[in-house]
């Protein structure tokens, strides 16, 4: 069973890689995509971002915190505004501010769910809108200041994939590597935390700290992706690859690897597709590709997929009919 599933996952990854290679050659010849330096950079950025978010998204989806990406990417805004007010327009400071604000948002969310009877969803909603409103208030205050350097603060929030430069991609790759190392180091703990947090606590793991660490990784991925890709893209990119990967396997390790591959595929192909026409936006195209992957997975995944379930039901019905023959009359009546 395990060996069979392993083989299936490897075959799937090989298939995706093959599909990506075919797509690259097809897009160059058939769609007339010109692989310029800019496009190569953006596509590479999409691949890295997709892989990073796909991997981390697995944990968010399995913990039923899928919309955390939505909440946190909005919650980054006040941090950016405060960093701008205090330090000025410096990328490092803005990123740090965004991270700090999202992180505080995570903390507030956990505080609300722990100390009140509000569930996770409304807690996320409350943090999302309040942080965002604070950010907007500060932003409107900044705009009222006689200060010309505020321009571009908003694209920082809402992302501009086309503005990606090689240095951004290097940054992104470095941070992704760091995130993967942390993930590997705490693999056992995160696995336990995801599937049975109470058991983890009973066994003496510092669940609170681990929770915070995992949230910090997700915050890092979101903040990194935000300025390149925009808010809504981050939501989809976090959820879609993980959901697709979940359909093909029952093992967390395989799911994480698959989600990374799916995410990378969606990021790269979406970025290239958006280059077909100058008027196609990058972020939404990536989402559409990612959702197509989800749709294919939901329909055709073996064992769990919709098609497999239908076929299995049919087989069972036939088997049942063979084992328990109905009276002649009734069988005719049904036909």
């Amino acid at each position, binding site marked *: 069973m395990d060996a069979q599933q392993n083989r299936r996952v490897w075959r799937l990854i090989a298939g995706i890689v093959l599909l990506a290679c075919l797509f690259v050659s097809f897009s160059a010849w058939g769609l007339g995509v010109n692989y310029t330096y800019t496009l190569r950079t953006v596509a590479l950025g999409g691949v890295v971002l997709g892989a990073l978010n796909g991997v981390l998204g697995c944990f968010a989806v399995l913990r039923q*915190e*899928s919309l955390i990406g939505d909440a946190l990417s909005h919650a980054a805004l006040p941090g950016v505004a405060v960093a701008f007010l205090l330090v000025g327009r410096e990328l490092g400071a803005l990123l740090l501010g965004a991270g700090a604000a999202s992180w505080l948002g995570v903390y507030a969310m956990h505080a609300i769910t722990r100390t009140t009877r509000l569930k996770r969803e409304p807690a996320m909603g409350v943090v999302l809108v*309040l942080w965002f409103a604070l950010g*907007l208030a500060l932003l409107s205050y900044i705009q009222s200041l006689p200060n010309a350097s505020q321009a571009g603060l908003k694209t920082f929030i809402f992302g501009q994939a086309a503005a990606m430069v090689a240095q951004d991609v290097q940054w992104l790759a470095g941070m992704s590597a760091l995130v993967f190392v942390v993930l590997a180091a705490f693999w056992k703990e995160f696995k336990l935390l995801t599937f049975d947090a109470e058991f983890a606590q009973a066994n003496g793991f510092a669940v609170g700290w681990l929770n915070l660490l995992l949230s910090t990784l997700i915050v890092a991925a979101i903040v990194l992706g935000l300025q390149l890709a925009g808010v809504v*893209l981050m*939501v989809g990119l976090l959820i879609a690859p993980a*959901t697709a990967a979940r359909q093909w396997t029952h093992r967390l390790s395989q799911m994480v690897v698959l989600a990374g591959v799916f995410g990378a595929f969606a990021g790269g192909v979406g970025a290239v597709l958006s280059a077909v026409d100058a008027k*196609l936006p990058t972020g939404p195209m990536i989402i559409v590709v990612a959702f197509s992957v989800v749709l294919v997975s939901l329909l055709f995944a073996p064992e769990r997929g919709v098609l497999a379930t239908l076929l299995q039901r049919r087989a069972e019905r036939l088997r049942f009919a063979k084992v328990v023959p109905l009276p002649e009359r009734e069988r005719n009546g049904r036909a």
Partner: protein
Amino acid sequence: MVALERLVIELLLLFVEHDALNAFLRDPRSVAVLVGAMIALCGALLGTFLLLRGQALTSDAISHTVLLGIVVTFLALTWLTGSTPDLSSPLLVLGAAGAGVLTVVLTETIQRSGLVKQDAALGLTFPLLFALAVILVTRYVDNVHLDTDAVLTGEIGMAWARTNSHCLDHCETITITEDDPRAQMTRQCTNCRQLGISPRDDGAQFREVCLNCGTYSPARAWQAGLIDQQPTLVFVPKSLGIMGALTLLTLAFVLLFYKELKVSTFDEALAHALGLRPRLLHYALMVLVSLVAVGAFEAVGSILVIAFFIVPPAAAYLLTDRLSVMLFLSPLVGVAGVWGGYDLARGSLFGVADMDALLAWANATFGLQLGAVWDVSISAAMVLMMGLFFFLAWVLSPKHGLLATAVRRLRQRYQFDTFVVLGHIDNHSGTARQAEELALETLHAHLHWSRSKLWRVLARLRALGLVQVREGQVLLTAHGAQRLLAFRHHNLIGRW
């Protein structure tokens, strides 16, 4: 719609002067607060049911996907009629409502496959629909200018400026045609631009054009000086009209279907069994949420509108266990937030603190270089104010609040400490090991407590007259023995 507005105006004029009404409707503050309060009322009532049904974030999803409905309807209308449709057309609103329902149906379809959980299903649906909308907008609709500021924060402060006029008296609609003596005619060159020639050149062709022809509503006719007597006009802000109608609709929905909503929210199976059609009600609720999201979009922006659905019900949920009370408290929080928020945006915190002074103080104290004038987005300030009320409810709620919980825990700890000591003394007094177990010097070790903790507890118990120290031993007083007995009887024996 127009007739409804007219009816309300006629009703109001029975009570107030026409000038006073106009003054009220031309005041930015009163209009902003009124529109905000209406959004808060709708959002809080509908959001209460969303929260209790575990669908708080559905409003978030819907507020994003209505864009798809608007864009698709817009493109369809453009394609069908061949001209750019009016952005305030009611058909666009219908399209938006359709997109809201589509979001819910799609989410439920994905969820019902059993392969994806509810939160992930929602998180798959709305980015997809939103992405499609963005692709359509950037690909096909480039002549409609979308101001990002307007999308983000709305323009509730300017709500008073866009109005519909209603004429009450001396209403005269003027139509000017080309042969009217008032028509201003001029000649316009028809082929100059094509041929690149000046109107003075030979070969230029002209036609007569009327500059001021058309139909004038009474308000415009008076403005243009076409009528002598000033018409009696009432200017109703457009947002006020839209939100007023939506408020009536929401109120009617909640009041008429209160019983059905209540049953289907808390026990959908029972609602089914009683024949109350909970699915239909569910979709009606979602249509209303979409309509309010679209109606409020212009005033408070696409993201902040979610706050009106989520924050007030969340605050009310912390304060009460009864649906009827929650339905009363949650609009109250929303409206209070709107009220306080407008003033906050204009620099005054409940009329108590002045934000400009606060900024100056921050600059002076921390050496910051902040601007000295506090001028922020009104809608954001309203949401922040609701957040403040949420925070207050979180801390101060009499039953579930942080403070109440802390006090309860403290009292439980006191009680626990008290009866651990009393019980220990009672268990060992009169036994052979009494001298050892109850010695003042070693008692803390028997209880596995620190010495200081024991001293603290003993001091309290002695002050209450429950224990006494005699010959280096801690003993119960008569009062203490009585208390212990009562406690055991009530909590231990009584339970068994």
